[in-house]
């Protein structure tokens, strides 16, 4: 008696292999194999009757809002072109470099009047220096003279 292997029984159950006449003949004659097949069949039918546990009704709405928050505002604020070119590590590095440059500009200057002649401007592209008419208020800078732009603050949060 060549009983069917477990794999052969399973293949037959899920229709993953074409039925072979010798195996079918054996199945018809062997109560043990038929019993094994019936057990697998019963388990499959039982498992197929159990529905997935549903999520909350507002799941998709919350998801789309979350996706909007994570993707859209960051893109709008920072410029999608620039952001897309950076990986998180590069973004952190860029933020660090920008913070350092800002620090140098404000620290290197003498009095408040000469402090900031140039500000790095974030646009839809790489950061570019741009002249500004009036220096930012000293109160905007931290205790060490570092003024964090919105970008730095955002990037520091690990965006």
């Amino acid at each position, binding site marked *: 008696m060549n009983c069917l*292997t*477990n*794999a052969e*029984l*399973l*293949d037959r159950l*899920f229709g*993953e292999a074409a039925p072979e006449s010798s195996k079918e003949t054996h199945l018809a004659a062997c109560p043990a194999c038929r*019993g*094994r097949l*019936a*057990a*697998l069949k*019963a*388990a*499959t*039918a*039982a*498992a*197929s*009757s*159990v*529905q*997935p*546990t*549903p*999520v*909350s009704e507002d*799941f*998709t709405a*919350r*998801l*789309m809002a*979350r*996706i909007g928050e*994570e*993707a859209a505002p960051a893109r709008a604020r920072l410029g999608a072109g620039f952001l897309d070119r950076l990986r998180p590590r590069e973004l952190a590095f860029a933020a660090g470099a920008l913070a350092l440059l800002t620090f140098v500009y404000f620290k290197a200057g003498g009095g408040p009047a000469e402090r900031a002649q140039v500000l790095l401007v974030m646009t839809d592209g790489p950061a570019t220096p741009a002249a500004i008419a009036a220096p930012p208020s000293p109160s905007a800078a931290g205790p060490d003279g570092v003024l964090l732009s919105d970008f730095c603050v955002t990037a520091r949060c690990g965006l």
Partner: protein
Amino acid sequence: MEYTDKNGLAGLEKALVARFQGGDTAAFSGLADLYKDRLHQFILCLLGPDREAEDIAQEAFVQIYKSLPSFRGTSGFGTWAYAVTRNVCRRRLRERGRDAVLFTEERETAADDVPQSGPTQELALESAETRALIRAEIAALSPVHRSVIFLSCWERLSYAEMAEALEIPVGTVRSRLHNALAALAARLKVLAEEEKI
């Protein structure tokens, strides 16, 4: 409810993926609606009862959203989504400081160790009470067994699709699925003998 119209759903799913990849990001909510309960259930299979399961499902969808532009469609969307979800679960376990050992059977049980009999009478599957008992028996299986049973019996994935979703060889899919079904059959047999189902 069973998926009687898997082909119809597959067509809708393909269309939604194509719309999304064509720039219509709103199409993603359709994909989320199609898959939210299924990915959630898969997470419950992998992690067991978990109060963060829904949050993990959200995280998985965010990951899918981010990766979908580069999805090439060589496998089905579902197969790919399950693989992404599985990796999100693995990452969440690591963050919790738990070893992701749940994802592999320490030793693939030798087929002969598994009992080979099940309930002898038809089960009353339309009864809510019976279904609740079956659900509890499935929940008592290992994560590995719960996952293959869900992907095969509910999702109707082929061996090859399951191999891709679970990142294991097809031969392993077969032995796991056989052992999982045999383990469930043995549990159902006990319930039937106790006349609970």
